[in-house]
């Protein structure tokens, strides 16, 4: 008896084609070849920890930002989301004023639009934090990922004046993690799955490579490339990026840069006192930023330059985090960069990090018996 071929097998064993057929096969391989979900597990943990921290910080100003009498009060937010009008696109060269707007209101939603009671706001906040903690741990991940995204969006839409790039990146990660099998590994779900199998006397199920893992990693990669491309292109509009002084605008912006730190201030003064060095630093910084942002979307797909691009992106975001104080934004960007790191590299990294845990009863891997592979979840290869 022969095992019937799956579609993936058919695609994998298809003869090499040319032209359009080759393109279709390449697209199919690119998006739909099964992949190891381990990178998604790592990305889930990083994202989960970050969103948990970000939303925990809301606790300091919960009522000031989410309450009906907050900085943006209920009347204002209702007016903005319900009464904002959009004009129709001008279909002619001459402007014709129309009394009828093309559309009214934003399609935004938030639990906090409707909560007016202080205790209800606090209760919902605590429940949302709980959902995020469960998502981070990988418990009922398919459900808690959606709840966490709904929670995150509720804060974003309710306090639109407090948003910056960090919220955008957080949202992008959560959207893709919702459709990804990010709880398949390094999660409580996985531990429960192993526990259930052991209880029934079955072998511990392996972590199988999946199409959805590859697909969502590809989405993250494409989105990241798009972000870099637009950021790089848009910088070409500014004169400060052409005369290489833009770097100074980020390094010496008192409200962002740590200029209140004595050593940083002293360093900047010293740098300014050495004009040629100052020019070299600013020029180098500007060129590095622009070149990386423009060429990353191309060179990251080339095997030989991939690590260079990944290292460049990590370096750039470390700089942004340290100099501009945008630590959470930078960490989220680095989390997105993780989607480019091959699963094999993650395996060795996770192996190294979890060495101690495997010797003890490991919650990450279930409790593999002597006879079973020590680390069945890490045997799956893309």
């Amino acid at each position, binding site marked *: 008896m022969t095992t019937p071929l799956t579609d993936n097998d058919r695609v994998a064993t298809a003869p090499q084609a040319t032209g359009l057929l080759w393109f279709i096969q390449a697209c199919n391989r690119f998006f739909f070849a099964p992949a190891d979900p381990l990178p998604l597990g790592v990305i889930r943990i990083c994202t989960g920890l970050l969103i948990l921290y970000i939303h925990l910080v809301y606790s300091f100003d919960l009522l000031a930002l989410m309450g009906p009498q907050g900085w*943006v009060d209920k009347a204002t937010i209702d007016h903005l989301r319900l009464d904002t009008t959009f004009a129709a696109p001008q279909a002619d060269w001459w402007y014709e004023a129309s009394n009828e707007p093309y559309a009214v209101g*934003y399609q935004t*939603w938030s639990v906090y639009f409707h909560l007016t009671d202080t205790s209800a706001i606090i209760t919902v906040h605590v429940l949302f934090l709980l959902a995020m903690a469960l998502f981070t741990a990988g418990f009922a991940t398919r459900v808690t990922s*959606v*709840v966490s995204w709904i929670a995150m969006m509720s804060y974003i839409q309710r306090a639109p004046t407090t948003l910056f790039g960090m919220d955008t990146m957080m949202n992008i990660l959560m959207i893709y993690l919702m459709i990804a099998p990010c709880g398949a590994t390094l999660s409580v779900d996985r531990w429960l799955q192993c526990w259930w199998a052991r209880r029934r006397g079955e072998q511990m199920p392996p972590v199988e490579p999946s199409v959805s893992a590859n697909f969502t990693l590809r989405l993250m990669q494409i989105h990241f490339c*798009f972000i870099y491309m637009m950021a790089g292109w848009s910088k070409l*509009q500014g004169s400060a*990026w052409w005369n290489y002084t833009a770097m100074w605008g980020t390094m*010496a912006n008192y409200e962002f840069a740590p200029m209140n730190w004595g050593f940083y201030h002293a360093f900047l003064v010293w740098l*300014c006192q050495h004009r040629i060095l100052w020019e070299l630093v600013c020029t180098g910084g500007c060129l590095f930023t622009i070149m990386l942002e423009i060429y990353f979307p191309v060179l990251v797909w080339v095997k030989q330059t991939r690590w260079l691009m990944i290292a460049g992106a990590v370096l750039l975001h470390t700089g942004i985090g340290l100099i501009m104080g945008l630590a959470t934004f930078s960490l989220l960007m680095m989390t997105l960069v993780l989607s480019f790191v091959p699963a094999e590299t993650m395996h060795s990294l996770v192996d190294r990090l979890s060495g101690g845990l495997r010797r003890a009863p490991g919650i990450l891997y279930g409790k593999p018996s002597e006879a079973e592979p020590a680390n069945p979840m890490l045997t799956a290869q893309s």
Partner: protein
Amino acid sequence: MTDEERAKPSRVLTTVLGPLVLLLGAGGLTTAGLGLIKLGESAYGQTLAERNLSPIPLGISLVVLGLLVAGGGVWWGVHKVGDTLYDRLFPAACCFLGAVVALLSAWAFSAWGSLSLLFRGMVLVGCVGAVLVLLPTILRRLAILFLLLLHFGGIWMASTSAPVPSGQPAWIPSAMWTVCYRPYLCFMYLNNAYHFYSPEPGPANLLWFRVEYADGSARWLKLIDREDCACRLQYQRYLAMTEMINQNQPTNMQKIAALADTRRLAGEVDNIPLYPDADLTIQYREPLPLAKVYLQSYARYVARTVKHLEKPETPVKFIKVYRVTHDIIRAGDLAYHASPTDPALYYPYFVGEFTPDGQLRDHRDNPLYERLTQDPYLYWMIPVFRRPKSPNPIGGTVQLELVDCLSRHAGDSPVPEWKNAPPTFHQDPLPDDLNERLGVPDPRKQLRGDAKDKQFGGAGNPRKN
């Protein structure tokens, strides 16, 4: 009977019956919740609410629980999609049942419009998911790629429909954004253009509020000081809040020129000149209507929360708000140990004096401004700058003195340290007859409209009109 065959009934139990029970249970919970919510919204429910017996909270809890259970059911039912149509029918049915639960939830939350929108979005996702699961693999992949193109097409439109420096955004992306993608991008919060630090990194903007109380005292609230924040992220959030006010309307030179006349006259009266050697288009920055709406809301919040330090019950009378651009220090200045917090690096714009309910104060309270259409300082830069202490320095080091018009305009200094700066020029108000003595038309008379040479086209006093 082999082990595999013996295991079959239990597999059917877990792969079919389990999800089905969960989804049907979720449907039951949601229906019960829906019933309770509708009961609470009825006239009888209002009577119950008066006795603190409203069934709405219980109904909401049941609906939320139903949704969570439905999520679990869909997850369980869909996690294995087979290759044959028969194997795909059940997962598709699970998706569809999930969509039904979301539809019931949308109905239950119909009074909470935005949440109803969320659940309608879930219905769409459930239905599309059911269709995708039903399709054979090749068609499913094509459909997914089509959805992918739509998704990234929307992100492209959001990115390219953003305004470009001194120009209009591209027509096609703008039209596509308005007509096709707006609901999707707003719903998913994917509207960012990713133009980070472009065209170039600019200075940060702060908001300074001067709260004046009924007893005549005042205190300042400054958004935002690092020291006031528990962590860096909280500080960043507040910086974003102040930055939101820095969205300005395009410059209309004719309007600015007209407003500049009254600004100059008022400045002569109050000894608050225009910023020397700076273009008027930089000195007048009227916020966009959206930023004005936010400003009003901020003012209301400040009025509610910033209490009098000694007598908290003292009501707030007015709130003056300044958007303060904190410029980036030049490298050449820093090399000579200039301070990045030098007062001259702060460029305050007066963005309005508000009543506690967030309305702009009627500028006609000042008899001088009765004939004007708006406060002559509104949206103008209130200069804080350094200038040579001696008008005609003869060699040697030029000593600079601080000209702090912000303190003069606000009534007191927002930064106590500025008071220790060298004395500013013209500390005393202009004598009433100074202009007459010098043969210059009195700006007070011109503002009032008493002068023979009417500056304002004889518009008269709008209050009298």
